[in-house]
């Protein structure tokens, strides 16, 4: 069986209008993949930046997968939320990106989007907060039901992921 190590960090986010941000992340893989060590999902700390406008999380990711096939290459999905001084959380964006497929260290910039509601909901979000959220988290990384959505852009999440592959050349896989 070939093995893949994903070792890196969710560094932070830029471009969001809110400032105290945190990120819930998860990894989704196909059926041929098995997670041997590491946690598949998590949530970062809430950061309020003092210098510049990038919120820094430096959240470590260390995953060890074993795989029998190339289908279902791991996808990292993210939800960025903002937290205000009262402790209320509001969605700032959803995003996903595939884990890189070539070995080495990669800098990734993952764009995010958030669902827009009707004009009433948008007005309410501007004054009171809240706003529509996805019912099923898998819409973030699958294209199946996307045509129903109307969304607006959020900021960008920056990741640095390193990939270590093992025994891929035994199976003739070039990456």
């Amino acid at each position, binding site marked *: 069986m070939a093995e893949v190590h994903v070792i890196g960090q969710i*560094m932070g986010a830029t471009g969001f209008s809110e400032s105290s941000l945190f990120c819930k992340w998860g990894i989704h893989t196909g059926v041929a993949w098995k997670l041997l*060590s590491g946690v598949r999902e998590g*949530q970062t700390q*809430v950061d309020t930046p*003092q*210098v510049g406008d990038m919120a820094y999380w430096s959240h470590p990711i260390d995953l060890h997968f074993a795989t029998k096939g190339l289908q279902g290459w791991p996808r990292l999905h993210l939800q960025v939320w903002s937290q205000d001084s009262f402790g209320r959380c509001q969605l700032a964006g959803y995003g996903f990106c595939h884990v890189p497929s070539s070995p*080495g260290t990669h800098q990734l910039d993952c764009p995010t989007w958030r669902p827009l509601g009707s004009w009433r909901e948008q007005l309410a979000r501007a004054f009171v907060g809240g706003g529509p959220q996805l019912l099923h988290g898998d819409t973030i990384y699958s294209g199946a039901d996307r045509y129903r959505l109307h969304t607006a852009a959020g900021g960008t999440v920056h990741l640095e992921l*390193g990939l*270590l592959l093992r*025994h891929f050349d035994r199976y003739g896989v070039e990456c």
Partner: protein
Amino acid sequence: MAAANPSVFLLMVNGQVESAQFPEYDDLYCKYCFVYGQDWAPTAGLEEGISQITSKSQDVRQLLVWNFPIDVTFKSTNPYGWPQIVLSVYGLDMFGNDVVRGYGAVHVPFSPGRHKRTIPMFVPESTSKLQKFTSWFMGRRPEYTDPKVVAQGEGREVTRVRSQGFVTLLFNVVTKDMRKLGYDTGPADTQGILGPSLPQGIPR
């Protein structure tokens, strides 16, 4: 350890904690330590250290330079738990107490070569304004009981932090027997210094 069929690979890291940028603070020192998984063990070198106290340069760069050496070798059977270096920066507040100015962590790069990393430093924040005032007054700021928690992902969901500075590190990485064990670490990064572009907000 048979050279033909090794079961263990080695990771040698040397380098330095080069400098820091903290716009609001001066007279700082840093401590570093390594956090690694259960399959890893250090075989040579120092796992932790404390640097000198440094003051900001008087010129426009406002740089705090430590130039503090790092030299350690690890052996392991499994890349899971790849070592991370955890940095804690401390300084004196206006009452003369030793307070924490930032924590940060980064994985040691795994492709052989020279790498420069600039990492953000953050401090835990007090939950209420009253606590913020009393901690400023008493000189006992919120800090982590064990800095190694910064290298873990679990248990950080409820922490609120403030990022307020950057530290630049330089690494030279050499590995032994990773290729023999079947691992592909990607291209050796000969231009690690000029390396990947940093996201905005990190000063060059």
